[in-house]
């Protein structure tokens, strides 16, 4: 575990850097005039509604779900890739079977049109 300590140190240094930058800007920044410029920016028009009142396309959710499925698959591939020289032919065939099953799912998703946008 001790070898991971430098990463923690790096994170702390990075946070300190960001904090220093923000504090420096806070000390010197111009103080604004009114509340009008605190409105959401809409190219000069007065906003009639807020962004949080609106809905957006369901497709973004679909992409997120597909990502989870395929990302979990790549996690399974990681130990196999690193142990490849030891698993040799056995590992290769095993993983080809795994990938074949995955590709079947991928083709199904493709045919259902889940990968089409619009």
């Amino acid at each position, binding site marked *: 575990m001790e070898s991971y300590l430098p*990463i923690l140190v*790096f*994170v702390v240094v990075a946070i300190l850097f960001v904090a220093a930058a923000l504090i420096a800007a806070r000390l010197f920044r111009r103080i604004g005039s009114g509340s009008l410029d605190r409105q*959401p*920016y809409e190219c000069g028009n007065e906003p009639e509604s807020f*962004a949080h009142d*609106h809905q957006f396309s369901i497709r973004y959710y679909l992409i*997120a779900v597909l990502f989870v499925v395929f*990302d979990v698959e790549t996690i399974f591939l990681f130990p196999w890739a690193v142990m490849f020289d030891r698993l040799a032919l056995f590992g290769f065939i095993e993983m080809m079977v795994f990938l074949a099953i995955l590709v079947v799912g991928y083709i199904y998703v493709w045919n259902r049109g889940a990968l089409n946008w619009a």
Partner: protein
Amino acid sequence: MTQELITTLVKITLWLVVLLTTVPVMVWVERRASAFIQDRRGPNRVGPLGLVQPLADALKFIFKEDITPTAADRPLYLLAPLLAVLPALTTFALIPFGPDVVIDGRTVPLIVADVETGVLLLLALASLGVYSLVMAGYSSNNKYSLFGGIRASSQMISYELALTLAVLAALIPVGSFRLDEVVLYQQGTWLGFLPRWNVFPQFIGFMVFLIAAFAETNRVPFDLPEADSELVAGYHTEYSSMKFALFFMGEYMSMATLSALAATLYFGGWHLPGVRFSDTWYWALAQGFGILLMKVALFLLFFVWVRWSFPRFRFDQLMRLGWKVLLPVGIFNLVLVAAMTLAGWL
């Protein structure tokens, strides 16, 4: 223990200095290069060749008014710029920048965190970057920001798959997550003149990685999250002053991260065939760091060149490229590299 802490701090400071110099230099390079490509002059008033322009920009960022919209979700609004810089900066803890050196009888690896999980951790840290964009887009409570944030999230997760598959393939012949071993694996030459770089046997993988890297950093032609002509500035529309500068820095740093990763995975990292590393530690450090930074600089130039050469994709084209082209090509490349390794060619 204290000695180790000091070496760690020195190494971190080294990266910090290099990265904080890279950002202003890149701003200058980007503007001058774009001017060159578009046959105009570019910034040339502040200092010779406009070299001090980034400094003037930085000062301006500090003195600008910092606006937080009243409708914004304040904690998330503040957290987003921090998260833009943090993952991009921290990933450099896992990039090796030279051979093991001996300082006063102690062997010091020239990498901040010499850990077993190497690339895995790097990918994990790099993928945290998406939170910053989503938070910025959501918390601003602005329609442009929201669209930019959502686009950014779905774009980045889509291309992360292809990126991961390409990285995986590069690890197969090496058999380790450690990036220093990836570099060691690529030492030597084929036929006496061709460096044993991964880019030659794994050219398909490299192309997948490169395209995905452009999408991951939201650079042209994949800059839909901040598509100026439709979304003003996308997820950072509401940001001003230093908070905006932090997003800017984060973007350039994540470009540098992926450039360093590409250089390490496909172009031999800090190593160059024919270079004999000095026995004196500081010379070896200078050599290793110099070679790595040279390769990173070439990648960064490539990023700029592409930005001013290609138009932006449409969102459906972007998704089609990611899911229907890069993903199957990535899987094909993985199988190909595995088969080649099995045959003993790599």
